[in-house]
């Protein structure tokens, strides 16, 4: 299926007729439609879903353009319509969905009519023909089954849900759809026609056409076999339900366990945060105390320290010049003291406390021993001694304290960064008690389901056995009758064909699954550089396997990017397989190429990953149509420039009107 044109008529903010053509050029298979959030990207993506299946994810289910609705007069009508031209299986189709809106006489909108769904195709003579109304749904299913569509019409906002669905075995339906995509639908149809629960299937209808006239017990046995079949089918159905319920419960358990273990982390993290905060406070106070200590040392010893050079030079000079003034020769302090005590001087003047003579004599004391120049110098030398010792280590002390102050900023930033990291991880951690309780509930639910399944399996076996005996008994009777014997022969051929096909199918299916797994893995590894790979089980459930803890850095990207990568890889893988099988020699495989229509999926990736994604997609999908934010768009164009065949832009006139313009 390739998409050619889309025409929107009064669809939401796309007022009037707005056509858009998608590139179908195989070499330039990318169409980029750019627009800011809120300009209509999601609406355009939803237009596909509405056109094909009549449904949207919008909360407001009214599709009519608000701008048109406002201008409608009472009793006036307006149509919303989306036409999608596409090519499927060499056939040119136009899918049309239309809905009529009208206003009542008071001017308010009535409930809209049911949508009208039409499919036209170009017949072999070039004439446009309508697919009969009764067959439109069937035909649509054949072109692109609903359950598969969301993997081609890729809504970035539903990724969480989608990845869960893919990873859980929720949809057998999905597995079936994938099988049909992979070209095994002829097989499944044949198997179904040969042998199914439907009374019209070949084997069932033979069962019911035995000539009961030959022996009344044949009819009775057939009835009993039917009853066993009913029982077996009921059990099988319940087993499928159980599997589903188990998956949900298991999911829940996993989720809870993860949360609980995270919470356990949280205790460690809280302690770590406490430790770091203390460290931070320690740093602050050690800076403060270093500052205080530095200044104290400086104030105490700066004079001594800065005077060292001067002391050295002064001492040098003093030691060279032997300058000791002796004052008045041979007079000592004792002489003066004696004169003062005696009360009169050598010259005969009276000496009284504080008279002129007394003061003169006291002055003389400064010039004679012991207070002579020599002793003053001696005092000075002692001062130098003391002061040089006091100032000796000032610079070392100050350097050490200053180092603490200078390193503070880096140390502080480092610790602060670590606190932020811890706090980020602490966000969203919940109360573990409640979680534990929930976990126990889900675990006992799981146990209950397992018991039920074991019992059902036993019952299933016993019914199968009883049925086998009845079938054998019936055969014994039927072989006695010519008509019935013929039926047995037909049945045997049908059974043989069924067995052969089933074997073949099982084998092919397994091969296809392996091949798909390889393809998906290849793409996944390409997108998600190593560290992780995927595995698929029988139900096409995708499991993520961590190959290498070293290479996987969970901090670089969110798990959203991981989930998107899973889905990308899966879709890309399915599309690639579908595409490859088209070229397969085996005519029994029926396949179609499919497009990929994506709504803004790049934002969750880091920039290098965007490059790989952009690189991968146009190679695996026949056609890529992306709606994208301006910022993402520039990146996408940088990396996909060669492949881009058409460019559009959303021009948002106001809240209710957006126009599609070619760039």
């Amino acid at each position, binding site marked *: 299926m390739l998409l050619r044109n889309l025409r929107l008529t009064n669809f939401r903010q796309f007022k009037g007729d707005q056509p858009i053509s998608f590139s179908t050029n195989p070499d330039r298979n990318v169409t980029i439609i750019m627009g800011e959030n809120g300009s209509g990207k999601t609406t355009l993506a939803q237009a596909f879903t509405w056109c094909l299946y009549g449904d949207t994810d919008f909360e407001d289910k009214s599709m009519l353009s608000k701008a048109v609705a406002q201008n409608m007069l009472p009793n006036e009508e307006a149509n919303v319509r989306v036409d999608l031209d596409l090519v499927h299986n060499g056939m040119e189709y136009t899918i049309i969905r239309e809905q009529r809106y009208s206003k009542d006489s008071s001017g308010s909108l009535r409930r809209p009519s049911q949508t009208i769904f039409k499919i036209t195709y170009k017949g072999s003579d070039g004439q446009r023909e309508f697919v009969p109304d009764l067959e439109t749904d069937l035909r649509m299913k054949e072109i692109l089954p609903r359950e598969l569509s969301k993997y081609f019409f890729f809504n970035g906002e539903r990724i969480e849900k989608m990845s869960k669905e893919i990873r859980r075995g929720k949809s057998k339906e999905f597995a079936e759809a994938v099988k049909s995509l992979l070209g095994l639908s002829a097989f499944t149809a044949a198997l179904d026609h040969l042998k199914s629960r439907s009374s019209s299937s070949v084997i069932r209808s033979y069962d019911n056409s035995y000539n009961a006239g030959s022996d009344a017990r044949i009819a009775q046995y057939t009835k009993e076999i039917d009853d066993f079949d009913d029982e077996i089918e009921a059990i099988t159905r319940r087993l499928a339900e159980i599997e589903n319920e188990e998956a949900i419960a298991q999911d829940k358990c996993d989720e809870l366990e993860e949360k609980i273990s995270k919470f356990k982390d949280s205790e460690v993290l809280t302690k770590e945060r406490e430790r770091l905060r203390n460290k931070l406070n320690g740093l602050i106070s050690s800076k*403060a105390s270093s*500052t*205080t200590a*530095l*200044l104290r040392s*400086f*104030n105490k010893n*700066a*004079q001594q*320290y*800065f*005077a*060292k*050079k*001067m*002391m*050295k*030079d*002064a*001492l*040098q*000079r*003093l*030691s060279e*010049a032997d*300058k000791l003034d002796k004052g008045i020769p041979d007079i000592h302090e004792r002489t003066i003291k004696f004169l003062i005590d005696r009360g009169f001087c050598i010259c005969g003047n009276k000496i009284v406390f504080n008279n002129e003579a007394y003061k003169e004599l006291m002055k003389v004391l400064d010039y004679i021993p012991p207070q002579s*120049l020599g002793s*003053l*110098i*001696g005092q*000075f*030398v*002692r*001062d*130098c*001694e003391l*002061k*040089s*010792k006091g100032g*000796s280590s*000032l*610079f070392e002390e*100050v*350097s050490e304290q*200053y180092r603490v*102050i*200078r390193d503070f*900023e880096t140390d502080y930033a480092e610790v602060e960064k670590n606190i932020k990291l811890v706090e980020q991880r602490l966000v969203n951690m919940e109360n573990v008690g409640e979680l534990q309780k929930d976990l126990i509930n889900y675990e006992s639910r799981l146990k209950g389901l397992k018991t039920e399944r074991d019992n059902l399996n036993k019952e299933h076996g016993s019914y199968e056995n009883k049925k086998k005996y009845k079938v054998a008994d019936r055969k014994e009777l039927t072989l006695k009758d010519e008509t019935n014997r013929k039926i047995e022969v037909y049945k045997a051929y049908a059974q043989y064909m069924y067995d052969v096909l089933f074997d073949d199918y099982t084998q092919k299916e397994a091969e296809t699954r392996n091949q798909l797994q390889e393809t998906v893995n290849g793409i996944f590894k390409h997108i998600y550089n190593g560290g992780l790979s995927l595995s698929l089980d029988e139900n096409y459930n995708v499991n993520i396997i961590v190959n290498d803890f070293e290479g996987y850095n969970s901090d670089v990207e969110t798990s959203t990017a991981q989930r998107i990568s899973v889905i990308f890889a899966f879709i890309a893988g399915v599309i690639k397989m579908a595409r490859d099988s088209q070229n397969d020699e085996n005519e029994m495989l029926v396949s179609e190429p499919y497009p990929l229509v994506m709504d803004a999926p790049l934002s969750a990736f880091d920039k290098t990953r965007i490059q790989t994604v952009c690189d991968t997609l146009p190679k695996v999908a026949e056609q890529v149509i992306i709606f994208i934010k301006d910022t993402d768009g520039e990146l996408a164009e940088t990396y996909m420039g060669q492949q881009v065949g058409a460019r559009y832009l959303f021009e948002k006139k106001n809240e209710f009107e957006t126009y599609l313009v070619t760039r």
Partner: protein
Amino acid sequence: MFDKEYSFRGSHAAKVIKMTASFDQKNNKIFARNFDVYLFAPIVGFMYGRDAPLDRENNEKTDIFPDILIREKNDLMFNYRLIMLLDKEYEPDFDERINKAFRYYGSPKAQPDEERYDSYVRGGVDVLYEKIMEGAKNSDDYLKNLFDFMEEFDERYNSNVSTDSILNLCNLARS
């Protein structure tokens, strides 16, 4: 000198006030008191060859009370003697410098010496202000400037002056 109140005046008063003001919330100051500036500045002024006249441009003034000067007189005298002993430009004759350092202090003869000493105090204040305060915006800057100043001084002079060499000279001078 050193026994009556001392006042920094004019621009020097302004600088001293800034250098003794708190620069952070923890009440940290580069110099704890005016006296600490007064004790340290003459050494810096002499070592950097900077003197400065009394600045009377405005009436700004900040005082050091005599009690602390008298209490710390020995340290101040030590500065005075060092400078007097080493100021060759001021007095080329060493004997006379010795007299200035040890004899004249306190006498009318010492008047110009004391003037000389005070001009080194003021020059030192200018140097300290330039080195530590100028260009600083926050406490980290002040500390960085202070450290750089010390480092510069250490590299220029003290890396060649060991405490031991001083102690040896002390012994020599006594003999």
